[in-house]
């Protein structure tokens, strides 16, 4: 092999190990899901291994199901938008607070918010369920004592709005520390001269943030927004573990939970996989749109 040929092959050889790992851990399961989504695959097929090819029947059935549009997709999208906006705004506010603190208080506040981040999802979710317990929870007890709700309590887990309000609290609580710390790292790199120049020009705090800080940190915001969007679209445990979050056909499901319940609750792995493929495509589309807008602005 010529020197040139070797040089061309080198990057691929270096890339081979990670590509191999990605192939085994990611591409193979992904391909398998796509394959499953075009088959009639239930408990019996699971045991025998033989299954019937259906083409796009599973997808057609899904896309013509009003349940997808009125319940699951609506839940997924509205929840993700609300949760991402809340997480990023709150995280940014906390970062702005942190950047103005002295070293010792800053370390204390960062340690506190890290606890929220480090909380395992399952324990965190159960804490929220406990806080909002319909009979004994602190929120119910407080509201009952204040006379805001009547003595019998209110089953917020049965109400789509309140159900997702609790999920949003849970997600924002565990998601904002990441945004805060990332934005803080960005804020520390904004040159002081820019801020001072704007100050001399008579810009108030809001204008300084919006016209100086934000443009400089644009890539940072793009990254935390994309990541939060992806995370919030595929929220699973925080919904599945809530009372009523695991009931087939309930109006509380999002795409991820629906895919799981279709597969493992109803033993319909074909439909479950088709839902998972739709979720994946949706996430890919969002990521592409974000990446394009990010790279266009930076002239990359």
């Amino acid at each position, binding site marked *: 092999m010529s020197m040139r040929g070797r040089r061309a092959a080198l990057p691929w*050889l270096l890339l081979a190990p990670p590509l*191999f790992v990605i192939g085994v851990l990611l591409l193979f399961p992904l391909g398998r899901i796509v394959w499953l989504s075009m088959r009639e695959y239930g*408990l019996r097929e699971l045991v025998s291994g033989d299954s019937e090819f259906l083409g796009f029947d599973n997808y057609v059935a899904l896309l013509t199901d009003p349940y997808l549009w009125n319940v699951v997709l609506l839940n997924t999208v509205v929840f993700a938008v609300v949760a991402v906006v809340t997480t990023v705004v709150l995280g940014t506010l906390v970062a702005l607070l942190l950047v103005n603190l002295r070293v010792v208080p800053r370390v204390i506040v960062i340690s506190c918010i890290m606890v929220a981040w480090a909380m395992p999802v399952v324990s965190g979710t159960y804490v929220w369920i406990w806080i909002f317990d319909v009979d004994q929870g602190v929120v119910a007890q407080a509201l009952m004592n204040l006379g805001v709700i009547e003595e019998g309590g209110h*089953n917020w887990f*049965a109400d789509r709005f309140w159900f997702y309000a609790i999920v949003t609290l849970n997600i924002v609580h565990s998601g904002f520390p990441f945004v805060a710390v990332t934005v803080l790292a960005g804020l520390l790199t904004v040159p002081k001269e820019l801020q001072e120049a704007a100050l001399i020009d008579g810009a108030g705090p809001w204008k300084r943030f919006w016209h100086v800080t934000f443009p400089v940190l644009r890539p940072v915001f793009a990254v935390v927004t994309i990541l939060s969007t992806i995370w919030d679209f595929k929220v699973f445990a925080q919904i599945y573990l809530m009372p009523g979050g695991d*009931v087939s056909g*309930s109006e509380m499901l999002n795409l991820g939970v629906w895919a799981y319940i279709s597969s*493992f609750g109803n033993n319909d792995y074909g439909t479950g996989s088709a839902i998972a493929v739709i979720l994946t495509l949706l996430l890919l589309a969002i990521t592409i749109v974000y990446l394009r807008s990010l790279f266009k602005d930076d002239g990359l």
Partner: protein
Amino acid sequence: MARRPLLTHAPLPAAALALVLAVTSCGDGGGDGGGGGDISATDTLTVWIMEGTNPDATGFFEEANEAFTEEHGVDVEVEFIPWADAQDKITTAMAGDTMPDVVELGTTFVPDFSDAGALHDVAPSIDDLSAYNEEMLEMGEIDDAVYSVPWYAAVRSMVYRTDVFEEHGAQEPENWEEMRETALDLAEAEEEMIAFPVPGDAQYSVMPWIWGGGAELAVEQDDGTWVSEIDSDGAREGMQFFTDLAMEDDLSTTGAVNWNEIDVMESFSDGDAIMALLGNANPKAIVENNPDLEGDIGVFPIPGQQEGYTDSFAGGSNLSVFEGTGNEAAGVAYVEHLTDPDWSVRWADETGFFPGGVDELQEYVESEDPTVRPFAVQLDEAGRATPATPEWGQVESENIIVGMQQDILNGNATVDEATESAADDIERILNGG
């Protein structure tokens, strides 16, 4: 120069390859499939046992397994699986080829798994199948094959606090109206307590009221299709009665909409509930949780709408051996070991369940224990099973009856609306829609 870095990377793909080989080779463990050879081929037997509403079972299995190891030279590893996760765990294990050798299956799941072909036919290995409870055995019978063996029977009846009843001069009610009035009186006398929790996430607490109203969950027609009677007048009357106890008479609590049978049991063992629909293993588990309640627990069969008894769900568990693990012979031996009269009676005594053997059950019907006999009477005279069709498992896993009950309790649907949509769903599933 170009080669050196390559060498340092070489171990990674090798390691990944080793990982893949290790993962795939797990699946080949049960290569010989069919017969499963003889017992000596097995070193360790893996057994999945359910846990949830029954008392702690670790001690029982330590001794039962020791006896089995002594006799057959095979070690047994028991893993406890919560009831709520059982189906997910079993199906994922089947998909990943990591099934246990022996599994406890709730009777309602048996037809589904038997039909799927995942289980080992035990008919050739067990001599006398007539020794077992017939209805439970039927759940796992397809033609001449038998895919599960009855282990213990469970039934739900009314469990109540004898001390509270005595204090307020209440009597065991003998029909629905008396039951409602008793609960109303007690609710008034004991304001801090829940007179009768009406759970939303407990389908077996719902079924009796449908049956009690004179309806069936689903009936097979001559042409082989199924018709659900959940939307019949009788079933609606039963559902109205049951849910009105919560909605109109306020005898339950708002949070109970999210409760399953375990939550109901916990409210009873916390001393909150006065009467509750509970299973025959619950009194022992309740005393285990809260020893103060010893001697204060009474039981009566669910009273009939006018007189007699209301049918209650008679379930329980069968033991099955998985096909294709290579340990089938040892698995069958273990099933025989647990279901033999000695160990099954001992299990029944320790848990409060009833043995799956016909002769063994008789003793309990004649028992003088006030927390045993009423359950045995319920099972003997007023026990009923869910429709014996493989598709019924899907009605349960899609939570059709739970959904109906919660829709009514949350005020999202009237009894008429909820029962109608439940009947439609059941017919769709059972008729292969």
